[in-house]
């Protein structure tokens, strides 16, 4: 009997890996050492049937079709920890994990929970399934009135891309209002798109829905083109990442900064306004797509340290090695799925770290986080005194606006 060694015909593994090679730095995957660092640093690697390193192994063994039949890859929160620590600098999250999720989604292997967020994005332009007409309802009552560009058509210095959760989530609206008030106090000439703003689509993209991401980018681009502004700032690290790194690839290119960068630049103007003391030990949580992916580590800390009375402390996972809140890469819409699989939440892990650092306040800079961490606080007794605050909320409190 003849034994055929590795088939030369085009297999699922080969077709797939060729599509990864076409992505930015995708060919680096050839340099994988199979060291296992990615699977070890992955917050859910211990549970995945195929953690990143094993996926590469499966491709090399020509059994990638087996990966597509599992569902534990949906535990990936696209936190980029695997890529950050890979000694071969392989874009594991951006290329390998995201492409794999795209294939799983095309094959219909997708948790129902995630499905409704994607359907909502398709229909309403936001994953929460809220009315697009109500996107700027959070502005009601703010004085001076927030400049809705569709109404005023005035040229502005700053276009504030508000984002889904900052616009709609009841908990987040308080942080969004706080930032609007800060901009007003600083005399910044800014405007928002309101109902013309669509989801940035980045988390949907990282959950495997590239087509939907492109549709969102196109809709936002149409709105951007209508108005005159110098730069975009955003309160959402996921939008920041999309606008900075992904939209330009689609031909939508604007200067963009996260709001902490924008404010840190105005620190001298802000300092005298921070009159009210906030006597607290504050631990800052680095959002994955602000810190690890885009290298913004210092500005949020600088702003917090400027508040009188604040003592900054660090948690065991910090900066490049920060721990995801669990909401990235579609995790925001897979809470039940994640719980069913591992009976724990990354947000709970993080809140325990804040308690261990003896923090009074866990400060954040991403709209996914306050609801996630506040839920975690409710389930962890030792954390019952821990408060979760957006940096914008703390600044506004100290400014007394």
């Amino acid at each position, binding site marked *: 009997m003849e034994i055929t060694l590795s088939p030369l015909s085009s297999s699922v593994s080969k077709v797939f890996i060729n599509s990864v090679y076409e992505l930015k730095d995708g060919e680096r995957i050839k340099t994988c050492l199979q060291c296992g660092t990615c699977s070890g640093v992955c917050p859910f690697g211990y549970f995945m049937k195929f953690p990143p390193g094993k996926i590469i192994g499966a491709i090399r063994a020509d059994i990638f079709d087996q990966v597509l039949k599992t569902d534990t890859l949906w535990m990936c929160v696209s936190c980029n920890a695997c890529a950050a620590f890979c000694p071969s600098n392989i874009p594991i999250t951006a290329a390998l994990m995201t492409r794999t999720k*795209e294939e799983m989604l095309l094959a219909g292997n997708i948790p129902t929970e995630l499905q409704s967020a994607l359907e909502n994005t*398709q229909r309403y332009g936001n994953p929460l399934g809220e009315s697009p007409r109500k996107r700027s309802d959070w502005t009601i009552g703010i004085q001076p009135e927030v400049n809705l560009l569709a109404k005023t058509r005035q040229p502005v210095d700053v276009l504030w891309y508000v984002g889904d959760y900052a616009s709609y989530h009841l908990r987040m609206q308080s942080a969004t209002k706080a930032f609007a008030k800060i901009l007003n106090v600083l005399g910044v000439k800014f405007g928002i798109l309101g109902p013309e703003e669509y989801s940035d689509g980045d988390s949907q993209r990282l959950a495997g*829905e590239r087509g*939907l991401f492109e549709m969102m980018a196109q809709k936002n681009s149409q709105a951007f083109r209508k108005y005159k502004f110098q730069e975009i700032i955003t309160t959402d690290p996921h939008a920041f990442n999309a606008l900075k790194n992904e939209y330009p690839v689609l031909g939508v290119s604007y200067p963009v900064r996260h709001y902490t960068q924008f404010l840190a630049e105005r620190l001298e103007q802000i300092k005298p306004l921070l009159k009210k003391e906030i006597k607290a030990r504050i631990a800052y949580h680095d959002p994955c797509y602000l810190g690890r992916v885009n290298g913004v580590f210092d500005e949020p800390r600088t702003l917090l340290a400027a508040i009188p009375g604040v003592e900054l402390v660090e948690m065991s996972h910090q900066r490049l090695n920060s721990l995801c809140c669990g909401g990235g890469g579609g995790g925001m819409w897979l809470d039940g799925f994640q719980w069913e699989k591992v009976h724990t939440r990354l947000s709970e892990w993080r809140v325990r770290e804040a308690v261990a650092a003896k923090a009074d306040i866990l400060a954040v800079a991403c709209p996914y986080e306050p609801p996630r961490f506040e839920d975690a606080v409710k389930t962890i007794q030792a954390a019952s005194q821990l408060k979760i605050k957006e940096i914008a909320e703390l600044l506004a409190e100290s400014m007394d606006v």
Partner: protein
Amino acid sequence: MKIAVPVKFVPDLVEEITIDPSGTALDTTWLRLIINEFDDHAVEQAILLKEKAGGQVSVLAAEAEGVDDFLFASAAKGADQLVKLTGDFSTVNNHALARAFADLLKKGKPDLILTGVQAHNDLDGSVGPLLAENLGMPYVGYVAGITPASDKVIARKEYSGGLVAEIEVKLPAVLGIQAAEKPPRYIAYSKIRQVMGTAKIETSPIAGLDTSGGTSVSRMFQPEVTQRATMLEGSPVDIADKLVGIFKELGVL
């Protein structure tokens, strides 16, 4: 098996619903339409049947904003034929819609017709039984599972209290779908875009709308505040005392 799925679009309740100045209908200025959820399940059930036993699936809808996208998404799921009824639907009710669907289905001669068991805007009965009446076919509603068997199907019908009946239905027949055997699947947006370039929507003009047999609305209104509720105030003990007093007064204690 030839399966036809007539579907209807209903007001999307995510948007605020307002009554128009006539006071007898919804204000359509800001109204957005969405597929009736039960009809979405009917399409999924048809595709599941096709995957199980083979066949051809046609999806039929009256023209409205968003209908094309829905039909293309159905094709991406596996529907073979997409038909859009065209004409003036401004005064449509379920009696008229069922007649319009029946005219078309008499020509198509499907073996099985699946449609959502109900819709939140059904004012004059649901479409399924009206359609069955017009076509002279049997109807079974609240169906949550179908097993095909040559010239008949076994329909799993849900009753209240968790009871389920398996009913043998001779074809052709109309089934009102309560839920598909699996939740409606997700189709990647890129797949829908692809289908938009290849699938074709057939249009079929309606002869006219025959709304007879339907209802006429004399007044449509938002829920009104009434004085029937009494708020009890005080400490939990006071409230409990007052509550017991009220129960005694009403003769339930």
